[in-house]
């Protein structure tokens, strides 16, 4: 089951560059929340703060608190523990090229020392079914490399890989931006189905996509969150002038 996320006074830096400033945001459990905004506005940095990937860059710094469920991820848990509870799907599909489809999906569990074969078989099948990829790959799970799939299939495999470790939150950083329209619509359908079980945060450049998949939308600009509200309200009647300018295409 998904859990809610409470972000309080979050600030982030890359070196001297203050990329996120005083972000406060409640992300509801078991819903999809979209983050929109022009390039470089900080939305990717923001999701990377939610699973402590931001700090893998040696010059990066974070202050403030992020509470996921009962846990303050910067105070009560190690980055490794946080990332097991908060899965991530990246902008470009990033399968492990030396691994089969099966091993790619099982990798999160296997690399953490989980080795019960029968349980793994079940988890891999369930995750691939969840990611709507099972029927396309079930015949050569172990024969084919994950890198041999098409871009859209790779991305769904990466989603299956993230789901296999049974996270509570799924972060998606422009998951469809490198894909064709058919694959994009498959990913969107998937988000729609997954949000009953996971809390989903999706960064997107595509405003129609935000409108289609998310109940809540946040608008980022220059490292600040300008407005956060129901997707319907953001797209029909935003309270901030800048949000309106952005969604009507006046800039960005």
């Amino acid at each position, binding site marked *: 089951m998904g859990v809610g996320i409470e972000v309080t006074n979050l600030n982030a830096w890359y070196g001297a560059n203050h990329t996120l400033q005083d972000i406060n945001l409640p992300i509801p459990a078991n819903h999809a929340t979209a983050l929109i905004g022009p390039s470089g506005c900080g939305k990717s940095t923001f999701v990377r703060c939610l699973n402590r*990937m931001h700090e893998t860059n040696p010059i990066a710094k974070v202050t403030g608190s992020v509470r996921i469920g009962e846990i303050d991820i910067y105070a009560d848990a190690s980055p490794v523990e946080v*990332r097991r509870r908060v899965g991530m799907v990246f902008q470009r599909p990033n399968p492990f090229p030396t691994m089969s489809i099966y091993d790619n999906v099982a990798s999160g569990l296997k690399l953490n020392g989980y080795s019960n074969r029968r349980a793994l078989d079940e988890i891999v099948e369930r995750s691939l079914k969840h990611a709507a990829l099972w029927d396309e790959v079930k015949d050569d799970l172990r024969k084919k*490399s994950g890198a041999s799939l098409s871009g859209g299939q790779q991305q769904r495999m990466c989603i299956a890989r993230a789901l296999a470790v049974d996270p509570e939150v799924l972060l998606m950083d422009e998951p469809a931006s490198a894909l064709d329209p058919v694959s994009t619509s498959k990913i969107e359908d998937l988000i729609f189905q997954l949000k009953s079980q996971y809390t989903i945060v999706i960064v997107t450049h595509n405003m129609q996509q935000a409108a289609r998949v998310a109940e809540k939308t946040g608008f980022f600009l220059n490292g600040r969150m300008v407005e956060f509200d129901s997707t319907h309200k953001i797209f029909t009647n935003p309270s901030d002038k800048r949000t309106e300018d952005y969604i009507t295409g006046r800039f960005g």
Partner: protein
Amino acid sequence: MAQRKNMRGALRTITDHVATGLAILATVLVVAPLVAIFGYLIYKGASSLNLAFFTEIPKPEGEVGGGMANAIVGSAVLLGVASLLGIPIGIGGGIYLAEFGRGTRLANAIRFTADVLNGVPSIVMGIAIYSLIVFQQKHFSAFSGGVALGIMMIPTVTRTTEEMLLMVPHSIREAALGLGVPNWRSVLSITLKTASPGVITGCMLAFARVAGETAPLLFTALGNQFWSVDLNQPIAALPLQIYIYAISPYDDQHRLAWAGALVLIALIVLAVSLVRYVAGRGILKGAS
């Protein structure tokens, strides 16, 4: 207008042919010495190859016949010791340079040291090991020879491992970290594994290079006319045996030296191909 276009097209075709021709010529020039050396070795050495060469030890001075069985086994022992020392240290160093020490002073110092070590003449390596091990122990030994070769392997292995690891895309490391895999595990099971074909090539390069080294063995392993696999005793090695026979006054020993050189090259090719085959078996359909 049309004519000018045609002329330009013709010029382009000619340039294309010339460039292709030059590339083919360069390829031939690269391969030619290898083929020539191999051909000459077969021509000079193949006639002296017989079962005795692989099963017998050298005959006493002046007698005809005998083989290099002890030198073949000796070389295998020396290279085994060298690989056990050089490959783990070399790969470990490469991992540190690429994954943990990036940009630190220590890493720059290690990188610089490795490059200098790579340029140290092998005879100097021999003298160094002679004074560090042989002189202290007061006897020549297979162990000291293996150490000399192993140290010579380290810089090549380290630098290729580092370069191959750096070629692994950042997105793959992020994928592993994003799954909650600890960094050390990600480095070993994902980054190193992804880079493994290149790392193995580096190890094989280092292996092949030291397999033919003679100078560092002259005053460490020393050579041995008899059977020995004892790490504490002087041991025979193919390059040493070739050297001894090549400078001897007897024709029969000259022929054996040629045969030894042929066998040495053939064994290196065999070892490298075998490792490549074994390492390549696990590769899946469509893996890049």
